[in-house]
């Protein structure tokens, strides 16, 4: 077995404490593009977005129109990916379903992270009763695993796409609030913040210029890292019939509907399966790269 001490670039950096600045790409997008895995992830992501946004515009079939005479048609010239159990065009349904799967994942993450940001920021900056109250609530919310919490909320609200999204929001905002708060608490003690305060800059401006940019960077990394699992949750719970109700299209629900026809029409299963996989891997690749690039520990 061969075993090599992994090369640590920081060792070398300590050796060249020279004056010459290392020329770096300052723009995050440029650095992401240079990261080969992120590049794959970004290309995939752009293609998927094109598929769900531009696709329905140029592809003529109506995803909701059943054609009972043409059920489970194999892929062909008329229906590129064939038709499903009700004779609806599979490709058009994949496009419409993708819009629902990806769009809702982004929507949920967008709302939980902004809710978490606001609550965490206020709690971290104000301290006092609001902080105590908010953090106890966060503790309680995080006492239950996210999936169980989501099942609980869908369980009482009843199955349905909106209910599912509400459940996911309720079960995941607390994490973002806690993250933001702990960042703010550390940032308040940061030396650049202390310097600014002593120099006469008010808290309001310090928050906007010194603290918020860092919080946002961190949140963007976490949101991207969680995007994959959010897509998986939404399609997974829809797969179980808790989310999108038929006849509306959604990748997880389509997967669920098509598995009974697997022996005659395996393509119906593969389409949504592949798309779910590609979306999750795209988000994961970008997320991991973002973390590598923006993580203050890795970036020093």
């Amino acid at each position, binding site marked *: 077995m061969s075993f090599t001490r992994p090369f640590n670039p920081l060792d*070398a950096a300590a050796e060249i404490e020279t004056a010459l600045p290392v020329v770096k790409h300052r723009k995050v997008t440029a650095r992401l593009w240079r990261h080969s895995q992120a590049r794959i992830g970004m290309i995939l992501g752009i293609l998927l977005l094109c598929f769900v946004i531009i696709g329905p515009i140029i592809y003529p079939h109506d995803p909701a129109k059943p054609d009972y005479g043409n059920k489970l048609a194999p892929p062909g010239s008329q229906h590129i990916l064939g038709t499903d159990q009700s004779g609806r065009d599979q490709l058009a349904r994949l496009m419409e379903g993708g819009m629902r799967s990806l769009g809702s994942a982004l929507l949920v993450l967008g709302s939980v992270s902004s809710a978490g940001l606001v609550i965490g920021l206020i709690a971290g900056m104000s301290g006092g009763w609001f902080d105590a109250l908010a953090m106890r609530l966060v503790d309680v919310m995080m006492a239950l695993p996210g999936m169980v919490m989501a099942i609980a909320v869908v369980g009482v609200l009843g199955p349905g796409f909106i209910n599912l999204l509400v459940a996911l929001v309720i079960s995941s905002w607390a994490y973002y609030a806690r993250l933001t708060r702990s960042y703010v608490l550390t940032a308040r003690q940061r030396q650049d913040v202390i310097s600014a305060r*002593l120099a*006469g800059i008010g808290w309001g401006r310090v928050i906007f210029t010194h603290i918020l940019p860092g919080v946002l960077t961190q949140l963007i990394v976490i949101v991207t890292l969680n995007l994959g699992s959010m897509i998986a949750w939404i399609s997974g719970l829809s797969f179980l019939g808790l989310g999108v109700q038929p006849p509306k299209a959604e990748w997880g629900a389509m997967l669920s509907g098509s598995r009974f026809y697997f022996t005659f029409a395996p393509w119906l299963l593969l389409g949504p399966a592949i798309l779910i996989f590609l979306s999750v891997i795209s988000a994961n690749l970008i997320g991991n790269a973002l973390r590598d690039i923006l993580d203050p520990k890795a970036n020093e």
Partner: protein
Amino acid sequence: MNEIATIQYQGLNVTYATGVHAVRGVSFDVRRGECLSLVGESGCGKTTMSHAALGLLPANTRLSGSININNIDILAASSNELRQLRGLVAGFVVQDPYAACNPLARVEDHVAEAWHAHGMTVPDQAVVQGITELGIQEPGTMIRRYPHQWSGGMLQRATIAAASAHNPNLIIADEPTSALDADRADTTLEALKQTGAALLLVSHDLAVVSRHADRIAICYAGKVVEIGDSQEIIKERRHPYTSGLLKAIPSLHEGLPEPMPGYPPDLRYQIAGCAFAPRCPHAMNICLETPPKMANGVACHLYVEHDHAKEKITRQTSTKELPRVSDRPPPEVKAKVLAEAREVSKTYRQGTRLTHAVRSASLQIKQGEIVGISGPSGCGKSTLLRLLATMEIPDAGEVYLDGELATRAGSKKIHSNLARKAYLMPVFQDPISSLDARWPIWRTIVEPLTAPHRKNQLSKEQSRQIAYDLLKGVGLENVDIEARPAELSVGQCQRVAIARVLAAKPKIIIADEPTSALDVSVSASILHLLVEFIEQERAIVIVSHDRPMLNVLCDRVLEMYDGLLVSNS
């Protein structure tokens, strides 16, 4: 027989995978029972040289030349041969004893690691004996404890016991004292010498090393530039770099330390002549063309007869007279009090444990004076500074700024407006984290000028111009004002931090260990920047563990111990 070298370096070259040519042809040896110290500033390759001796460099590092220990060439040795040397023939000690110990293993296991690692049984009492020999009495129960339960000084002695447990011929010690307080450093080095092994001591601290090492090798840019008897090196200062280094060290130099101009070269590129030539006050034409050869213990063209061009290079040197402490008029006795702490105390609570960081300390800062506060680590000196700067509220007592109440116990309010109007500005120990990592440095520098109470309306162009002028004032005219802190060296970041302070024009600078993260030549220039700031109506408070530095710099130095401000000298 005493002249036989225990370890012999011959033409060692080391290039890292990043292309950094960290060691560029180094030859020296350490004889039996001798202590040789490799001294130099960060980036000079001294650590690389020492790690190479035990084959500890990353696998993708390119090495050439040879290092001989016991007639085995380390660079050619098989991994088994290397393993036989490690621990048994050569011991190894590093800077931070806590980092050097696996936190999950007991101290006795660390001491016995060399036996365990080689599959030997640990001789009875060997561990206890090893530790007792280094001056820890009755280690019986202590060694069953974990590293975090030991104090730094004791643990460092335990790691020395671990390195010397097998009575090795050679001990390689990489900065063994720099994580310790000054008085601990001497006893630790004595303990290392007691082991009787040949000692290869890597250090940045010429002052400490000169008291213990038999010989010193001064390293610069991956080369040994001067080597010889330690007392002679200190006395004769033959190489210009040695001389510059010595002038920058407060305890070895009369008066305020003198900074060295310029920066070390980038070792990713080839260096044609002498690496020090661009910074050397005596540089000649030949220095830029031919690398000097080591002769009589010094590698410098000044000491070699050349038949051709030896004329000195004329260059624009800064003609600015260096300020000296003695030149400064003494602060007036009746000078106005700028800041005052009255009987302040601060206690931190961690679980059920209380730490009395500051106990009823009183301190006045008057116009025109530089006040130093010194003391061992954990004595509360930084807390006192933060209390004075109104960064924290005292548990007892009050702080006054310009005669106005600023903070007092029992009130979270900052009472004086001055406290948040750049009356005081801080300089911190870690310069990189004192700047916002996202901001270009010009923005950091002009930030104090944008404070609302100044009512400035600065356009971006004006701001950048101001920042550029200030950067020039702190000797950074060549630095891109758009640079982010991570693109600068530690010393440059500290200069940027000082430029920010100068922009704010505070009455008092609050400096917490402003030089301890920096190399000596850099820290000398930082001290100069601080001294230049002082004018009749201003003051500096500086906290440091470096007593000699405070002695030359300050008008008065206060000693702090265990939260108490003890003496007033």
